[in-house]
């Protein structure tokens, strides 16, 4: 009897002992989101916060903290230099932050290549969608359009604005961009009342309207997702190398659509644990089922690949940067 008790006690203590070794046992990990609650970045973070703990040794509690402002520059500054490198802070920000750093936007106090990269939870592809009742079925039709096609947008720095702007300026499409709509769904309504002829935006935000046959996609940027692989890619149509470089630069961060990083200096072991957990959580059938229900496409991009994208963006020659600056401003 006594032996059995001792055995049970020892067995019970085993996982405890393993967990006690983990730097995460009994701890709380905070995911800092650079936007308010309810948006795409926030929803992704909250989904992960629910599924990550069981894949991290020591099963820490994970909470989400919203730190909105300045298109998430504030949150990135915080995770970069205010948070302790103890592995308990994870940040997820605007995917365009490397562009903010490239364009030397005031207030940027971080270096995207120095974060401890976990990776990206999804890639976000930008597409241009045109109203289905218009005669422009493909990009070729759009190129031949003799009437100006009106594109609704939120504002400079957002993919609703920058993507069609480059199509217009570099590929010579006959577009007119009307910006100032308060959200991408507001533009959708403008499409519905035929105030504008189309809009650009992330595939995930337009997909349900494509399903409803209100609009259809005609061209996409580099990052792809199931369902839009066949679309022509903007940078492949560029008339010259510099135009191609500018378009490539705009879309490069989209491969790292939902970036996740830790404070620079976080111990390697913890970063590795977190990467492992992300891989497992995102491939978890339960998480995938929930993501599918929420119409979110979750796909892990490893940290070193994400870092490579950052280096590609930030290592551009000066003439490309100067050209890029003519068209693109940092925002959203």
């Amino acid at each position, binding site marked *: 009897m006594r032996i059995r008790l001792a055995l049970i006690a020892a067995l019970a203590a085993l996982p405890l002992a393993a967990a006690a070794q983990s730097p995460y046992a009994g701890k709380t990990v905070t995911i800092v989101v650079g936007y308010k609650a309810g948006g795409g970045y926030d929803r992704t973070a909250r989904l992960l916060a629910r599924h990550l703990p069981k894949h991290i040794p020591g099963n820490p509690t994970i909470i989400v903290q919203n730190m909105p402002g300045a298109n998430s520059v504030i949150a990135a500054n915080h995770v970069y230099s205010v948070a302790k490198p103890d592995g308990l802070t994870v940040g997820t920000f605007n995917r365009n932050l490397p562009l903010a750093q490239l364009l030397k936007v005031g207030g940027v106090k971080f270096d995207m290549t120095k974060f401890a990269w976990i990776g990206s939870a999804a890639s976000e592809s930008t597409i241009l969608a045109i109203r289905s009742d218009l005669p422009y079925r493909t990009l070729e039709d759009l190129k031949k359009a003799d009437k100006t096609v009106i594109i609704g947008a939120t504002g400079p720095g957002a993919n609703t604005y920058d993507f069609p702007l480059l199509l217009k300026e570099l590929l010579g499409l006959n577009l*007119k961009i009307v910006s100032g709509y308060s959200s991408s769904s507001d533009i959708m309504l403008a499409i519905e009342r035929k105030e504008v002829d189309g809009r650009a935006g992330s595939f995930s935000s337009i997909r349900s309207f494509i399903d409803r046959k209100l609009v259809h996609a005609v061209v996409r940027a580099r990052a792809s997702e199931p369902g839009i692989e066949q679309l022509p890619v903007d940078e492949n149509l560029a008339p010259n190398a510099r135009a191609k470089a500018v378009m490539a630069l705009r879309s490069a961060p989209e491969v790292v659509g939902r970036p996740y990083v830790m404070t620079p200096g976080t111990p390697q072991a913890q970063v590795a644990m977190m990467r492992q957990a992300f891989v497992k959580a995102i491939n978890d059938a339960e998480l995938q089922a929930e993501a599918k229900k929420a119409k979110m496409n979750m796909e892990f991009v490893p940290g070193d690949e994400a870092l490579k994208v950052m280096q590609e963006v930030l290592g551009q020659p000066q003439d490309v940067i100067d050209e890029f600056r003519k068209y693109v401003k940092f925002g959203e």
Partner: protein
Amino acid sequence: MIDAFYEGLLLVLQWKTLAFMSLGIVLGFWVGLLPGLGGATTLALMLPFIYTMQPVQAFAFLLGMHAVVATTGDITSVLFGVPGEGTSAATILDGHAMAKKGEAGRALGAALTSSLVGAIVGAFALALAVPVVRPVVLTFGSPELFMLAIVGLAFIASLSSQGGRGMLRGFLAGGLGLLCATVGQDPQAGVARFTFDALYLWQGLELVPVLVGIFAIPEIVGLVVRRTSIAGAVPAGKLNQGAWEGVKDTFRHFWLTIRCSLIGTFIGIMPGMGGAIAQWMAYGHATQSARNAEERKGFGAGDVRGVLGPGAANNSKEGGALIPTVAFGVPGSSAMAILLGGFFLLGLVPGPDMLTTHLSVTFSMVWTIVLANIITVLVCFAFLNKLAKLTAVRGALLIPVILVLVFIGSYTATNHYGDILVMLLFGGIGYLMVLGGWPRAPFVLGLVLGKIAENYLYISIARYEAAWLTRPVVLVLMALTLGVVLYPLYQSRRAGVKKAAHA
């Protein structure tokens, strides 16, 4: 149609659905009372819990919570002058003034009953509007929405005190509000305006810290200076009654309540107008009901009509805001944007189908709003008069509590110390405005309408050039603007004529 209306009610009346709704109501009740902890944030937090629910249950839970937030937000507005939500600030002007006169119970009774009437009217207006709602919403393009913002701004004429000097001050305060609305990165050229190199200001001024500062701080300073309780000289025994009086007030001014409910529903239906606007337009309309200059002066000093108007609009707009979300998949507010996320989780596709094949689900949402309001109002009445007694508590004891609400409420806007600074700055401005006799309502109207007016004007011109000026609805709205601006003049002229006739 009528079948679906009825069926929607039956869907909500199932016990499980009712249970989830009650749970939502309890949550929403507290969220509404606590300033700053907004309905939208709470919805986002609750979203994961709906995975396992049936659509009707999930919406009963989420909407039950959301509907109540708007109702109970009025309670802190009336009692302490602290807006419980960004959308319940207009109730402060007369509601808190009534509390200071020792009529907190009556003000609360009026706010809650008008909320209830608003929710019901909103629901029925929607039910009637379902067949025409798509064309109506689609008629309102950017030019029309711009003109609607202008109509809203025209209400400054009603919100200012009468006479040339009062009007001048009103429009100047409105101008200041418009100016404050330009802070942040502009959406046409991407230029940072008035951000003073502060990252915090990139996204513009947050509404909640500004509202909390401009309304609550002057009240707190006043309470400190008076060295009494909120209700001052009124004996505590008298505070124990009055809620019933507020109910009667609602029916005394029944048509005003109905009209303000309809204003709320209409603004709610318009996507992109935002929740804060409905109640201010309703308040503006309520002030128009003053029959003479004497009565007009009573507004802001505790006229119950100033509570009824915003109270009614505040809740009727919730039903209205469902429409663009449900029928177009285009959310009318941030809370609705989160609700939209709920749609996908439940496998429903918002769009025209929701007005035809899934109409009963849509109506079940409307019914949820109605039932949640009825339940809340009934529960609240049990202790309204007790709540009103809080206004008899000595200021020195109350102020620390109110200050905590004020600071936390502001800080939860973006969790940045900038929220506190903005609140204090606008608190100072608000105090000076009160001292100098400048009206605060026009300022708020300018602030909430500024961005909408600017962006839709830009889009209208970029898209249609000058042609937008001749669109029929634009012309009608222009006439309406003129009417709203000239009505106070007409009123004072008529009053003058009457006086002359008597003399």
